[in-house]
């Protein structure tokens, strides 16, 4: 309200932003602060009492809680590692193969590989549980048919294998996403660049490593951060396959399952929304830290090429 003649107020900006801001505030920002508030309270004699960072102190100070939390976090990292090591390279390789002009039935392959991503995790979880079932599954039979029956194990029931198996199921489901993004990035590389390389004698695999890969790096960065956020929020597939107890022996426990059991309770264990919110806040902060590191340290240093 100063009398200085400032730039003309541009009301239309606020008007156009309003719908998105309102929806986002109602559905994301308010619940986020609601969770933060819940995590700072505790139920004492049926009353919600402010305890500051008491819940966080319990979470990290009490071995009953901290062990479960660190185990979940460690498993989240392993889940992320499997995706980065398996899903994204395979996605890139598939995209590179799809962009080979001589390939036939491209649309078919693209669709077939992408379809699992649009399936519900419930379908994927139950389908794979059945496929890998030692009793009714087709996995033991298939391995038997090629004489490798001795390699079969009830993977989903063994502590050493269960989490990796679930991670690989998730990879199977979502490999279509990096494939599509990279495929789009590869298509946007102008032919002139590749032709110029060709004239200089860079063809085939060399062209991929020297020309295409550097050009799609920003896309790979975006995929990595999407994978990171998705994997640290992981819960659904573990829940459908192993239940809220993250069997066997909590070996598939991720922060999401711990949060679910704590917040809502499980069987005879009553829910504790306050501790649950504390865990949810930690998940949020960890993901926030990861995204921040990416945005400020990696994204800003990445070289972009304009054509």
């Amino acid at each position, binding site marked *: 309200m100063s009398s200085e003649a400032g730039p003309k107020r541009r009301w239309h900006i606020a008007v156009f932003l309003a719908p998105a801001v309102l929806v986002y505030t109602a559905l994301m920002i308010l619940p986020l602060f609601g969770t933060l508030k819940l995590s700072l309270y505790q139920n004492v004699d049926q009353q919600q009492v402010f305890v500051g960072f008491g819940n966080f102190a319990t979470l990290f100070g009490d071995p009953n809680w901290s062990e479960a939390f660190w185990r979940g976090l460690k498993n989240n990292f392993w889940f992320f590692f499997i995706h980065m090591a398996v899903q994204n390279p395979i996605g890139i390789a598939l995209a590179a193969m799809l962009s080979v002009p001589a390939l036939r039935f491209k649309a078919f392959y693209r669709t077939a590989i992408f379809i699992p991503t649009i399936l519900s995790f419930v379908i994927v979880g139950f389908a794979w549980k059945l496929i890998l079932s030692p009793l009714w599954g087709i996995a033991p039979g298939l391995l038997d048919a090629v004489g490798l029956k001795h390699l079969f194990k*009830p993977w989903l029931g*063994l502590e050493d294998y269960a989490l990796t198996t679930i991670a690989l199921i998730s990879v199977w489901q979502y490999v279509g996403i990096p494939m599509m993004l990279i495929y789009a990035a590869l298509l946007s590389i102008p032919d002139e660049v590749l032709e110029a390389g060709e004239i200089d004698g860079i063809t085939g695999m060399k062209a991929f490593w020297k020309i295409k890969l550097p050009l799609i790096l920003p896309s790979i960065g975006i995929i990595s951060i999407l994978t990171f956020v998705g994997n640290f929020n992981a819960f659904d597939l573990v829940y459908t396959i192993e239940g809220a107890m993250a*069997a066997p022996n909590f070996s598939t426990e991720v922060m999401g399952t711990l949060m679910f059991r704590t917040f809502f309770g499980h069987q005879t264990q009553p829910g504790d929304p306050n501790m649950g919110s504390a865990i949810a806040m930690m998940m949020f902060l960890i993901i926030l830290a990861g995204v921040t590191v990416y945005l400020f340290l990696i994204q800003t240093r990445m070289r972009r090429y304009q054509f």
Partner: protein
Amino acid sequence: MRATGLAAAFAATAALGGAVWAQEVTLTIESWRNDDLKIWQEKIIPAFEASHPGIKVVFAPTAPAQYNSALNAKLEAGTAGDLITCRPFDGSLQMFQKGYLEDLSDMEVLNNFGPVAKSGWSTDDGSATYCIPMASVIHGFIYNKDAFEELGLEEPKTVDEFYALLDRIKEDGSYIPMAMGTADEWEAATMGYANIGTKYWKGEEGRKALIAGKSKLTDPEWVEPYRELSRWGQYLGDGFEAQSYPDSQNLFTLGRAAIYPAGSWEISGFNAQADFEMGAFPPPVLPGGECYISDHVDIAMGLNPASPNKEAARTFLEWVGSPEFASLYSNALPGFFSLSNADITLEDPLAQTMVGWRKSCNSSIRPYAQILGRGTPNLHTEYWVTSANVIRGTMTPEEAGQHMQDALDSWYTPPAQ
């Protein structure tokens, strides 16, 4: 003329509708027994409605795993039904303390039940009872009679006979000796540990000693059941580690397994699925020992204090406590045995066998149901995981006992002697 006719018709309908509203009360039952929906709709509710005109009853179950949390959310929001199916012990006790269950101590119909039956839904000092007991479930072993005949086997009486029998079935190879998996973990605890363990800690005696702090979970009577469980792995099917609860049920009803460590609630499902004859034997006894069974008070019904139809709901609860209901319920749902003192006969032979154990064996509830299931870590959850671990062979019985005692010590102080 036509308009007046229409108006009159409207008025008549409205009046009629109003009259129906005034007379009829609809009661809604909250429950986790979604498996029993048909039985409630076809047998139990019609029987009640026939003798109590003016009260309509709707059975509205939720999925078992979500029941407690969903119900609590509904109660807090004030949208829960009039009648609430009560889980035993702490789950319901907390609801009572929060004022979500009405005190029913003044209901005369409670005299139809013994103290053990009421213990599941009374305060720790027994001063108030807030749910009308409905049924308990009994653990034991259900077996395939045809398979036993084929192999020339008899029901085992002692632990040694039991394992000799399992060895023989395994040697023969045509049946999987026992159908159980560890993927869901709870079966290992309830159908494993609580089932065969009761005889070691001598039922109620050992359970009360534990609550009083007179024994520890590292004592032999609490570790020995784990030792027995550690032998089970070899008798379960290939890949039992990834075998889920429905897998085990199917394995048995398809006739591929000889013995099923069971809870009596399986009876009606098995009757419908299996096309062979079934028998049941109680957990085998120790040499020279007595027979003990896990006879766990499981299900009861209470009243939501916020219900607008308390009168009608109390009428329904009176009926739930009556011998008529006891007989109807136990026969409609063989395997859920009424806790009523009334003498009832069961038509289902398998159910009759299992309920007969109440006479020949000592009954006890599951070890961590009362008082010890409170606190974090929750002993109930812990004994699922330790039992499954011991069967999988990833934990020794001694480690399991130590783990349980550590968990208990972390929050429980026994009352001063």
